[in-house]
């Protein structure tokens, strides 16, 4: 944590190497957050790059008091997504991109399984409220802690936990067809 604060401080002073390290440690998390929402590999990669360009341009004005760097970065990603969704709103929903790169792609069967699961989860998350969807994206795709998610969404930790609970319950109902369904 202290190491990240140092990196952020150095990046704010214009040290490119420090920003490059922040980029490396957060890129995959931002990518997963974005791809869960837009479902297209190439567009998600470009969008993630845009998030970091925006962060690079703005880091001089970043104030760490009360807002961790991760939360600040995810707010940028969220705002980029809002713009993207606004522009895409008139277009039809596209199916999940088949070229999506699975982390553990050594096994074809596993790869197919993950893609099927992702399609189901993406469709199920579409039925959540905006706030529930955001919590699921931040916690699972972005890998944020409750504290970081709370800072990102400007809500209390208790509110995030409650949203997390209701979101998973709703996903369960959609994915399995009942809270007590087997799996």
């Amino acid at each position: 944590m202290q190491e990240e604060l140092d990196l952020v401080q150095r990046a704010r002073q214009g040290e490119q190497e420090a920003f490059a390290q922040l980029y490396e440690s957060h890129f995959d998390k931002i990518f997963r957050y974005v791809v869960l929402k837009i479902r297209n590999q190439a567009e998600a990669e470009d969008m993630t790059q845009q998030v970091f360009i925006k962060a690079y341009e703005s880091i001089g004005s970043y104030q760490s008091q009360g807002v961790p760097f991760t939360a600040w970065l995810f707010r940028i990603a969220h705002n980029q997504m809002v713009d993207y969704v606004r522009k895409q709103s008139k277009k039809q929903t596209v199916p999940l991109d088949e070229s999506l790169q699975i982390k553990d792609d050594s096994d074809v069967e596993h790869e197919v399984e993950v893609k099927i699961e992702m399609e189901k989860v993406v469709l199920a998350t579409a039925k959540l409220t905006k706030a529930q969807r955001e919590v699921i994206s931040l916690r699972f795709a972005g890998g944020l802690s409750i504290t970081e998610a709370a800072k990102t969404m400007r809500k209390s930790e208790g509110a995030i936990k409650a949203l997390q609970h209701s979101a998973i319950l709703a996903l369960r109902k959609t994915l399995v067809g009942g809270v007590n369904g087997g799996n």
Partner: protein
Amino acid sequence: MGTNKQFDNILNECLEKLITGQETVEQCLQRYPQYAAELEPLLRTATMVNKAVDVKPSAEFRAKSTL
């Protein structure tokens, strides 16, 4: 309300360990047997969601992308 809050905390504690691979669903249920019936379907769903977001940027993109 207090009970909901307590359950939300337990659920979150289990999720935290599940997401980071420190614990399995079964291990969490063993720690909270009194909540097992309510926890299990939620943790199984969370596992499904966690697995579904197991994606990465392409190697080609990573190779050419630096700031």
